[in-house]
């Protein structure tokens, strides 16, 4: 099976697609950061005991006054920017992934039910989705966060509330076309109940397009979370994500202390860029309409 995959058209096309390779290399680097980020730096930026105000606002090491201890400089609390970025990346990525997983589970379930049963249930679910789609997702998230207050759990709930719609719509569409196929009728003739038909027969056949949706959504979520944190309604100040790091540095950006803001900015851009490059490749490969 593994050998079959390696010689498949998917792998063949991947090898010839420079941007897909670039995207996945970026993602590999970020995966390493998420797994082993804290091991790469000496300072734990969340541990106040390790911070020294004497080290505040040190420039990057290649500038005058920079030190090798702080390769990308420090912020106002003497926190190593590199360490902050590595820890912050973890927060951002984990929020993006968890919110994606939660949206996917909830959205897929609702989409399956709407597509399978149709009728009033379908109408209700899809009208909610339509109404929600008529507002910018940022606005909804912002509204929810202002209502809930800051916190990682609240960010996750807000992002999920924004993100389930796209799964529900995609899954409902695929379900509607799968339900008409004869293998579903065959499952009925075999005596399967609805729940089993949905789980065993429909779910596996509507998953493929979700891979693309999910990949791109992680990028979107990271950006929304960064925006929320930038606006001060996202993650708490004790566990800064990349967005919050940018905000913290933004206050002093025009005093010439650019590094505290710019480095997390570059990292978030690289991360979302990598996700989108790889997402585009997946879309081209997995979308049957383009094939």
């Amino acid at each position, binding site marked *: 099976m593994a050998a079959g995959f390696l010689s498949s058209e998917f792998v063949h096309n991947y090898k010839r697609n420079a941007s897909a390779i670039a995207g996945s290399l970026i993602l590999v680097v970020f995966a390493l950061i998420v797994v082993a980020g804290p091991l790469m730096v000496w300072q734990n930026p969340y541990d106040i005991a390790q911070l020294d105000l004497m080290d505040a606002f040190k420039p990057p090491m290649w500038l005058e006054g920079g030190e090798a201890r702080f390769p990308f400089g420090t912020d106002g609390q003497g926190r190593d920017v590199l360490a902050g970025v590595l820890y912050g990346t973890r927060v951002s990525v984990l929020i993006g992934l968890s919110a994606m997983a939660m949206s996917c589970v909830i959205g897929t379930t609702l989409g399956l039910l709407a597509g399978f049963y149709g009728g009033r249930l379908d*109408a209700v679910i899809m009208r909610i989705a339509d109404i929600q789609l008529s507002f910018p997702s940022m606005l909804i998230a912002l509204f929810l966060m202002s209502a809930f207050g800051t916190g990682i759990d609240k960010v996750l709930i807000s992002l999920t509330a924004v993100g389930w719609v796209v799964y529900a719509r995609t899954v409902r569409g695929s379900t509607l076309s799968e339900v008409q*196929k*004869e*293998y579903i*009728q*065959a*499952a*009925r*003739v*075999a*005596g*399967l*109940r*609805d729940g089993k038909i949905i789980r*065993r*027969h429909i779910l*596996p*056949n509507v998953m493929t397009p979700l891979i693309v949706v999910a990949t791109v959504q992680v990028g979107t979520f990271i950006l929304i979370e960064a925006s929320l944190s930038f606006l001060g309604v996202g993650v708490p100040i004790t566990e800064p994500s990349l967005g919050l790091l940018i905000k913290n540095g933004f206050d002093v950006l025009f005093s010439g202390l650019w590094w505290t803001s710019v480095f997390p900015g570059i990292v978030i851009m690289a991360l979302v860029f990598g996700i989108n490059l790889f997402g585009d490749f997946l879309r081209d490969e997995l979308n049957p309409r383009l094939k």
Partner: protein
Amino acid sequence: MTAMLEVENLTQEFRLGGSLLERMRFDKGRLSFPDKRVKAVNGVSFRIARGEVMALVGESGCGKSTVAKTIARIYRPTGGKIRIEGEDIAGYGVRELLPVRSRMQMIFQDPYASLNPRQRVRDIVAEPLLEQTTGTAARREVAERTLALLAKVGLNTEHAGRYPHQFSGGQRQRIGIARALSVNPGLIIADEPVSALDVSIQAQILNLMMDLRDEFGLAYLFISHDLSVVHHIADRVGVMYLGFLVETGPREHIFSAPRHPYTRALLSAAPSIEKTRSRPEIELKGEVPSALDLPSGCCFRTRCPLAFERCRLERPTLKPVGGGAEVACHLTDEPDRDRA
């Protein structure tokens, strides 16, 4: 002796979907929301004895597939009775139907769409039987039986671990047949089982189905639009038009002495490689009317070259014409017009 299957006055209506807005009509200053109903099957009755092959023929939209799927209880019938070995299952729910499923199974038309692409062949074939089975020991027996079934329909046991896309259309149809056989049913409903296959493969599948009938004493309800296939496989034939059974009888009656004008038209329209055959006896004009709005009287009168006044006023019912055949046509009462 009770029949394997007895269908009595089966009707099936489908409500055309659509929201209130789509159905909204404005008529004489009044707003109404008419309920459009497709009358797919209009009072069909027939019986199939054990080991008998009954074919339903007709053109697309005549309701033959709906009859099959309603009997298989993929749909709930609007009215009428469906007796499997004397037991009326027309009103059964999913739970009550489960034991019935082991006496009646189905083979589908599309060898591509009728198998779940994400399931392995052994899981596809075992599915109906597993629903009837509990306990691990019994499940192990199911696995053995699955391999035996694959061999029975002409596949290798090493095929069991593969996915449907690795097979040709004919092989997929064999998998579908093995699935239907898994519960050892007495009746198999076959909905156009060979119409999606190439002719050379078609012959293989028809031969397989007939061999299995001889071995297991199966009864088939065989749905087809192909008269040459029906002539080959069926003991008895029912001809359907617009949801009505217009003629039914033993194979020889339908093919040698058809009485209903539609049956005759159907037979003369079918192309044949035998050039010697006589030219069209009856040629039809126009097309089948909509099932949303059935004609008054006889459903076939709008295309019937022999239609007369009574056909518009009165709907004919099936009447015996001898030799086990029944015809729903006013001409049986007035043989003089038939000759004209």
